């Protein structure tokens, strides 16, 4: 039924559009503008994709890892581009390719909102407006030239330029198409007093901005109308509020071609601007008093309404951001609930299929490969959860340096990845194992794989718990607590690196992968007792508060559990294949008591020395 509907809907829409193009050239121009704009978004995302995991991502992460940094970033970008909606659109592309998170994205959008006020000052003061569409053609030319280059980063820059070019070009065509309606926009026709006037003019502001695709253009219109007294000062303020709401249309259009995260950002942007608008409409009188007060302080004449409009625009955006920043988490919660993400396409099992179910060995191999894939993903999630980078952990760089280079807490939603990727993959594995009919020996191996997957889930849950205080303390002003938390991060990173070495070990005369894990178990136990000793000292010396001590105690337990689970995953997965040597390795592998006995022997030997 759904497929049939799909088959009918698309041709119908195309037919309606074709008829519209035939009837109205303006409609054709607007639609082409939207199409070019959307294509620009795709090109832009493709361009930014080339830089994921590279320099741009690092710069972006560094310049948005704190709320004030995101705000500054957005403010600067909007001031330079003279368009907050373009900054929102670019932010959506950053988000879509996972270069930044939703919190950082919202910070940029909020900052851009404040940045757009510089435009209001320029327009009100000098009647200036930077015309970005003039850059579209050179951008397209240089962009296409760069796309043909071999280098990945050159191609990336090319796609970004082409994307921006098409965005500007699309907006230009939309504006051209709407010009027919723009000329019929006579503001005097709607002049009204009181709350009704405010509401009507807010609506006009929204519509005018949607038509002109630019809050700047609306501002020019407002200021011109205000200067020739076509509209009252109150109505002008309402128009400015409406322009601010209407400008979200660009972000909404941009989100159409984006994934669910981009849509969330666009919705959050709309909600933010609508809420700020409602608030200002409700408190219009006190706000006008505030504008008068500030205007007299900065020496503006009482009747200099155009400059007062710029003051209002600034207050409106700054107060809006001040109110919304503390509410960012509930806002994210709301948009996440409204836009629930479907399981990611990458979350589909790659190796498990119906055909291999029939053959024990093939099915086992598929299970092993799928588990290895989930493990790889999980390591990436763990790294991000610890505000680290997987590639850096697995590099040759000294881990102390790696930790030092990532000394700032970076928010990362583990639950999101857990729910939408890892959990569904693990469920697919469990489901697959339940459908296998195997003999006793194979069932032992299947059970090991199942255990490995369960350990992956446990590890991620533990990292989530650990993350809470870790984000608080890794860049704490108390050097003792930050050192301890960074030590916990380093320990986990070290184990991940050593496990990677063991996993990549080639079969040699001395390779005993499962048994190599025992050395890690020993280090784990040893570090745990060292930490207990150090913790006592930190409390005794008063270096950390009781709260910190409790957090550290709990989190060291989580760290212990994470490392232990990582070892278990590898223990169960590494050699899940049956064989006399593998079985022998499983038999010889030391248990916790045996590890502790090696540890106490070591201690005794050290004391004797």
């Amino acid at each position: 039924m759904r497929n049939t509907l799909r088959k009918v809907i698309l041709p119908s829409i195309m037919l309606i559009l074709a008829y519209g193009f035939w009837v109205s050239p303006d409609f054709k121009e607007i639609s082409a503008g939207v199409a070019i704009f959307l294509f620009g978004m795709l090109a832009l995302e493709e361009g930014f994709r080339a830089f994921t995991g590279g320099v741009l991502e690092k710069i972006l992460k560094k310049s948005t890892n704190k709320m004030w940094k995101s705000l500054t970033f957005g403010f600067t970008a909007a001031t330079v581009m003279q368009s907050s909606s373009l900054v929102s659109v670019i932010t959506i592309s950053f988000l879509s390719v996972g270069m930044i998170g939703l919190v950082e994205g919202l910070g940029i959008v909020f900052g851009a909102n404040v940045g757009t006020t510089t435009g209001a000052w320029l327009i009100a003061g000098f009647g200036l407006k930077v015309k970005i569409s003039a850059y579209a053609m050179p951008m397209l030319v240089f962009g296409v030239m760069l796309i043909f280059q071999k280098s990945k980063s050159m191609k990336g820059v090319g796609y970004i330029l082409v994307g921006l070019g098409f965005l500007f070009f699309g907006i230009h065509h939309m504006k051209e198409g709407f010009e027919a309606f723009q000329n019929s926009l006579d503001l005097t026709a709607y002049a009204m007093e009181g709350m009704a006037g405010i509401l009507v003019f807010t609506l006009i502001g929204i519509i005018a901005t949607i038509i002109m695709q630019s809050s700047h253009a609306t501002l020019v219109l407002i200021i011109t109308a205000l200067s020739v007294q076509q509209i009252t000062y109150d109505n002008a303020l309402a128009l400015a509020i409406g322009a601010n709401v209407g400008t979200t249309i660009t972000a909404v259009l941009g989100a159409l071609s984006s994934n669910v995260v981009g849509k969330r950002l666009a919705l959050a942007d709309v909600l933010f601007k609508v809420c700020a608008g409602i608030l200002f409409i409700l408190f219009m009188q006190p706000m006008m008093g505030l504008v008068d007060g500030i205007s007299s302080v900065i020496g503006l004449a009482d009747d200099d309404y155009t400059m007062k409009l710029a003051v209002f625009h600034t207050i409106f955006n700054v107060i809006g951001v001040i109110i919304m920043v503390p509410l960012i988490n509930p806002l994210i919660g709301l948009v996440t609930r409204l836009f629930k993400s479907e399981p990611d396409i990458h979350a589909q099992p790659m190796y498990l299929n119906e055909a291999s179910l029939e053959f024990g060995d093939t099915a086992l191999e598929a299970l092993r490969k799928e588990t290895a894939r989930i493990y790889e993903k999980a390591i990436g999630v763990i790294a991000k959860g610890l505000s680290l980078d997987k590639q850096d952990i697995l590099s040759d760089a000294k881990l102390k340096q790696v930790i030092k280079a990532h000394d700032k807490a970076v928010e990362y939603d583990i639950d999101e990845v857990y729910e939408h990727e890892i959990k569904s993959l693990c469920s697919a594995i469990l489901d697959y194992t339940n459908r296998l009919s195997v003999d006793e020996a194979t069932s032992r191996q299947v059970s090991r794989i199942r255990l490995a997957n369960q350990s992956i889930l446990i590890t991620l849950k533990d990292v989530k718990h650990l993350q809470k205080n870790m984000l608080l303390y890794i860049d704490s002003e108390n050097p003792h607590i930050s050192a301890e938390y960074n030590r916990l991060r380093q320990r986990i990173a070290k184990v991940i690196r050593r496990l990677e070495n063991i996993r990549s070990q080639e079969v040699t005369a001395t390779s005993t992968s499962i048994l190599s894990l025992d050395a890690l178990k020993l280090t784990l136990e040893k570090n745990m007792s060292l930490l207990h000793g150090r913790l006592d000292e930190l409390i005794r010396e008063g270096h950390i508060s009781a709260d910190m001590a409790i957090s550290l105690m709990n989190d060291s337990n989580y760290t212990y559990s994470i490392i232990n689970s990582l070892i278990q995953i590898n223990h169960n997965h590494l050699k899940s294949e049956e064989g006399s040597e593998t079985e022998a390795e499983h038999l010889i592998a030391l248990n916790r008591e045996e590890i502790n006995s090696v540890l106490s022997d070591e201690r005794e030997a050290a004391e004797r020395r």
Partner: protein
Amino acid sequence: MKFDNALKKKLLKKLKSYMNAEAEQLQQEDEGLSKVLKKLKKKEKHLKALIAAERDEDVREMLEQELNVVHSQRKKGITLLSSLRKKVSK
């Protein structure tokens, strides 16, 4: 009813392996343990050589730890192997 020779041989082999399944398994375990123990012995030697050549205190400590672990594993393996052989001889 007549069996041809090939089929007879096949059936006899199956019967024999069925009767000796436990012995065969013990034999396999013995082989596995012996192989791993040999590997561990080599690993022990290799680690000793590495420790002797290592100048970095931290790395040496880590290698020594690993050596202790390998030593314990070997001890455990030898115990397991001897008990297995006792079981076989009974």
